[in-house]
C-alpha cells in the first residue's frame, strides 16, 4: 500500500461499528457498561483505519483497543480520523502509543486531526514513539 499520510481531508466514514443510542436524550455515560453513547467507532472504507467520534475514557477505551486489534493486519499504515474526537484520556493515548509500537517495521499509525490534548500527551509521554505520527496542527 502506498503511504498517503494526510492527503485526503474528506471523511471516509463508512459503516458504524457500534450502535448509537437514539431516542430520548440519554444521560451521557449511562447507556451500557461501555459508554455506547459516548464513543462511536467507524471503519474507513478506502483505507485501513478508524474514525472516532466522541470521547475515549475509562468506559470506552476497551472498545477502542478491541477495534484497533480487529483491524486487518496487512502491510501499510493505519489511519485514524480524529476530528470528531472531543475527549481522550491518558489511557486512550497510551492505547494509541501501544498500538503504534505493535505495528511492524515501517508501518505507521497516522493520526489525522488529533485534538490538542492528545498532541500534548503524546509530545510529553511518547515523543519518540516509532510509527506514531500526527498530522500538522
Amino acid at each position, binding site marked *: 500500500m502506498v503511504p498517503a499520510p494526510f492527503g485526503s481531508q474528506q471523511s471516509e466514514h463508512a459503516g458504524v461499528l457500534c450502535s448509537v443510542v437514539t431516542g430520548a436524550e440519554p444521560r451521557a455515560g449511562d447507556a451500557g457498561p461501555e459508554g455506547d453513547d459516548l464513543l462511536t467507532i467507524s471503519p474507513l472504507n478506502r483505507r485501513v483505519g478508524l474514525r472516532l467520534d466522541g470521547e475515549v475514557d*475509562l468506559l470506552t477505551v476497551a472498545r477502542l483497543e478491541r477495534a484497533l486489534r480487529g483491524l486487518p493486519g496487512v502491510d501499510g499504515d493505519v489511519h485514524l480520523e480524529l476530528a470528531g474526537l472531543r475527549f481522550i484520556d491518558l489511557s486512550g493515548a497510551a492505547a494509541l502509543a501501544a498500538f503504534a509500537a505493535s505495528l511492524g517495521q515501517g508501518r505507521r499509525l497516522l493520526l489525522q486531526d488529533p485534538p490538542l490534548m492528545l498532541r500534548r500527551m503524546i509530545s510529553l509521554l511518547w515523543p519518540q514513539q516509532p510509527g506514531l505520527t500526527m498530522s500538522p496542527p
Partner: protein
Amino acid sequence: MTGSATSALPVDTVQHEALFYRTAQEFVAGTARFVRTGLDTGDPVLVAVPGGAKIEALRSAAAGAGSVQFADMTEVGRNPARIIPFVRRFADQHAGRRVWFVGEPIWPERSAAEYRECVRHEALLNTAFAGTAITIFCPYDVAGLDHGAIADAWRTHPVLVDGLDTRPSPGYADPAMLYAADDWPLPDSPTGAEVLPYQHHDLHRIRELVLRWARLAGLGADRADDLLVAVNKVATNTLAHTDAGGTLRIWREPPTGRLVCELRDTGRIADPLVGRRLPAIDAERGRGLWLANQFCDLVELRSNEHGTTVRLHASQRS
C-alpha cells in the same frame, strides 16, 4: 568554602545547602562561587533561578559559564513538583558525574499554597536524590521572605551557607516526617464550591462541570484541556483504586480567581515521590499524577489512612 569539600565525599551522596542572601550582590557572589566550584571540578552545572535578570547576573559573574545550563524557575518550577523530574533528567544525562544544581524555588510572591508545596519539595529533594552524586544549592532571599520561610529552610537543608560561613543546620528535619500530610493541612474549601460526588459512569459529568467552570474562569481552550485531562485522570484513579467513589469540589480561589478542582477519595498513596518520577518507571497512578503536575500550575496532594485529597490549580498564564 561552598562545596569545596564535596570532592572528598563518596560519589553517591546528595549534598543540599541553603544560601541566605540579603542583597543582589550577596546572591550573585554566593551563587557564582558555587557555580565556579562545580565548573572547576569539571562537572555539569544546572541553574534554575526566578527571572531573566538573575540568570543574566549569574551568567556574567560566573566566567566561562558557557557550559552551565540555565533555566527560569518561574517556568520550569512554576509547579514545584516539576523540579525534581527536571533535575533528574539532567542528572541522568550526565550519569557517572557529580552534577551541581542551583535551585531557587521560593520567592516572596509565591502564594501560600505554592509556598507549602515548595517546602515539601525542598524536603523531598533529600529523598529523591539520596544515593545520587549531586550537590544542590538553594538561594533564599532573607530580605524578602518572612521568618517562617527561613525556619523552614533550616528544616529542609542539612547545610546552611551565610556569606563565607558554612555550617550544619541545627534544625534539619527528617524529610519523610516533614512531608507528612499532617504537617501541611489544606485550608477548607469555600462554602461556594460546587460539589459533585462521583462513581463509575460519572466521568463525563465531571468533564462537563470542569469545562463549565473553566469557561467561567476565562481559561483558554489549551489550559482548559490540560485541566480536563488531569482531573479526569485523578478521578479515574479513584474509580480504579477504590470502591467508594469520590467527591469533586470546584471553586475559584480569591483573590486571583484561579480555578481549583479538589478530588477526595478513600484511597491511600504512600509514596511521597509519586508524580515526581518520570513515568516510564512508574505505576499507572504515578503516571497520572506526573501528568497532572505537568499540566497544572499547582498540585496539592495529601494522603493518610483516612483517604487522599488532590487539589489541581489552573490559571490562564502558563
